[in-house]
């Protein structure tokens, strides 16, 4: 097992526990606050190494979502969103490819790719993930207004949490 695998395994466990034990409890009541849901575990999908095969990215993300689901008592909901997000990440990386291509030894981190690039990349993945997650949770587009509101509000707070995490640990890989 090389160091990148170990790093990502630890991140997997860490983010699942952070999400499932801490952030899950940060649910609020009230007119505006009920829309706040902080999801940080998509960061794991965001930070997977660039050279990981698509099949692996998707499979691991499925496991990630399923693990979070165990804490949320919502088997399949996070897994569906994480799987779709992983699939979308692979396409997004191809679109966002900088001139000259990626260094395939790197991971798409802030340290490696620069803050503007990383922010853009992370926000698109996060926005997609949140929208997909809230759609599967509602399971119908009848409540599209609530889905969009949930997505917008949660996006702001999830990105705040994500940036805090990134600035505290500032991972290279």
């Amino acid at each position, binding site marked *: 097992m090389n160091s990148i695998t170990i790093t990502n395994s630890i991140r997997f466990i860490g983010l699942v526990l952070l999400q499932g034990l801490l952030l899950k409890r940060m649910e609020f009541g009230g007119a505006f606050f009920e829309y706040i849901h902080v999801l940080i575990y998509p960061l794991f999908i965001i930070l997977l190494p660039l050279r990981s095969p698509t*099949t692996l990215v998707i499979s691991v993300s499925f496991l990630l979502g399923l693990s979070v689901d165990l804490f949320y008592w919502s088997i*399949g909901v996070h*897994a*569906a969103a994480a799987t779709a997000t992983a699939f979308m990440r692979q396409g997004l990386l191809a679109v966002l490819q900088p001139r000259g291509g990626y260094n395939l030894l790197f991971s798409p981190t802030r340290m490696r790719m620069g803050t503007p690039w990383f922010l853009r990349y992370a926000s698109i993945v996060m926005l997609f993930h949140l929208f997909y997650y809230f759609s599967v949770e509602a*399971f119908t587009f009848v409540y599209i207004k609530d889905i969009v509101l949930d997505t917008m509000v949660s996006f702001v707070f999830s990105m705040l949490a994500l940036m805090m995490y990134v600035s505290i640990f500032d991972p290279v890989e």
Partner: protein
Amino acid sequence: MRKLFLLFLRNGGLLAFGLLEVISLFLVVQFNPDQEKIFFNSLNNWVAGTDAISQNTLDYLQLDTYADSLARANAQMLEKLDNALFIHQIEEDSIKRTDWEQQYVLTSAKIVDKTVSRKNNFFILNRGERHGIKRNSGVITEKGVIGVVVDVSKDYAQVMTVLHQQSRLSVALRRTGDFGALVWDGDDDRYVSLVDVPKHVQPVEGDTIQTSGFSQMFPEGVMLGKIEEFDIEPGSNFYDIKVRLSEDMRTVKYGYVVDNLKRAQIDSLKAGLGE
């Protein structure tokens, strides 16, 4: 085998995504009561919707049958109207004795072939000798008059429509009771002309034109159309009246063949007069 492997390698991402997404959604429906309810409700709606579509299609395919039975029912009801009955009304010692007897019998028929845009137009009905159709019977609809049967085969009847230059129907103005004849100039299939209405009559635009009951082909009072416009040429003694047909000859699909049960009596009397 190698090809299969390559295919998986190339599209592995999509396959893995599809497979795991389906598994996830299956788990969602399996383990979450809310989503399960939504899923099965939607499924029910969808099935019900599909069911309704197929039912509608079947109904549509059976429309012909329904229309046939409706036309039969209509014929039976039209026969019960006053103008289809022969009335024996005799005053005896100031006791009025009224006796109704069927005079006109209607047979519903489907128009299986038609022309409307020629100078002389004929319809073919799917009723013939076997169904008791006779020559010179009138053909009507609920809305108006179609024409007169001119030829009958075993299963079919040919109708000379009002849109025929030889067609000449005895009609009357419903409001005033004055008579005239309805002819066609071979031009517009929506309009016919009313002739032989004398100068002293005062028609109004919109006056209803109906059958007179004198031809023995139609019951009295079957609507034909309404007066669209009229004028009188200087020096002429008769009006020139344009009548808009109440039945659309282009779209009409069903008609009723009218059989006058008393006709033979009248015809033989007329023959006697002629001699």
